[in-house]
């Protein structure tokens, strides 16, 4: 039996297109970017703890890059996000300027 709990308000706002990044590292790095940019963040919510461990590791590896992106309001220059980059940039304007 699979048992999964999904949910809970209030959700942090992320660009919808973030969910369409298939590459594991890029998927987690972009989620990390929007999570770090939110000063009221209280939880990071995901299905498996291994995803969380990966996210923290990637965050450490790219820490300086992520901070620069948040400061400059830009999207990291990483692979596998070309199909959603423009939409993520729109999300940056809406999120980082709050």
């Amino acid at each position: 039996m699979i048992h999964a709990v999904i949910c809970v308000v209030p959700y942090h706002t992320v660009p919808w297109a973030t969910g369409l990044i298939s590459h594991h590292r890029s998927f987690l790095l972009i989620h990390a970017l929007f999570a770090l940019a939110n000063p009221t963040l209280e939880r990071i919510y995901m299905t498996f703890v291994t995803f969380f461990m990966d996210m923290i590791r990637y965050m450490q590896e790219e820490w300086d890059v992520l901070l620069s992106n948040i400061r400059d309001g830009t999207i990291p220059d990483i692979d596998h996000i070309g199909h959603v980059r423009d939409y993520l940039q729109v999300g940056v304007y809406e999120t980082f300027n709050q």
Partner: protein
Amino acid sequence: MSCIPSHRPIPLMTSPPIVHPLTSLPPQLLAVLKQTTDQHLQDAIGAIITSQYASSSPDLADFRSTVRDKDMKEDSTVLSDFRNLVPLTDYEAYRPWMAKFFEPPCKLSEVENLLAPGLPSYFAVSSSTSGSKPKHFARYIGSTGLIRAAEDSVRSSTLTGTIAPVFSLSYRDIVDVIAASGEVVKKIPVSIASSGFLRKCEGWNVETDNTRMASMSECPLDQDTTIEGH
């Protein structure tokens, strides 16, 4: 910047609390658990019994003949019949049925009501950790009685900040279900379970993804939801 809400006490350095795990549920909770489990099982059996699979699988022949004249929704002896007469099966019993979805063209006349009423909401792909071949699971959200709101799950009334949800909405493939007229009546995504479930709950059909690309994703679900399957 602090992530700790001001009204929430900051834990002091104290010795860890002593925890005494229960080795069994109290009788009252045990009764509730049994009643809830039985109700879910009866609902699921009542819904699935009319499927192509349940109508013709040899594994269910004895069960079918025994419950033929019974009220599937009300007669509780259906549950004991199920437990006594339905053998344990593994994925191999379902693989030939699942294959019907993945042999194009996927015709509506052949796959409607195949494993449960209607058509699947999505196909969940397993991580292939057992056995060499990946497994596909047809998830019929809404037609089997196996989805419900959980009142006591992770909602926190003390939550004052925001949550970063980290969920994929990607899919690996799409199964087009085709009517006799040749029209595609449903596009069913093949994805990891959480992606398919979230899409189903939000009504995010794959064919309308382009209308959401530039939007912000906020408050996907307004209640805690628990899904149970397989």
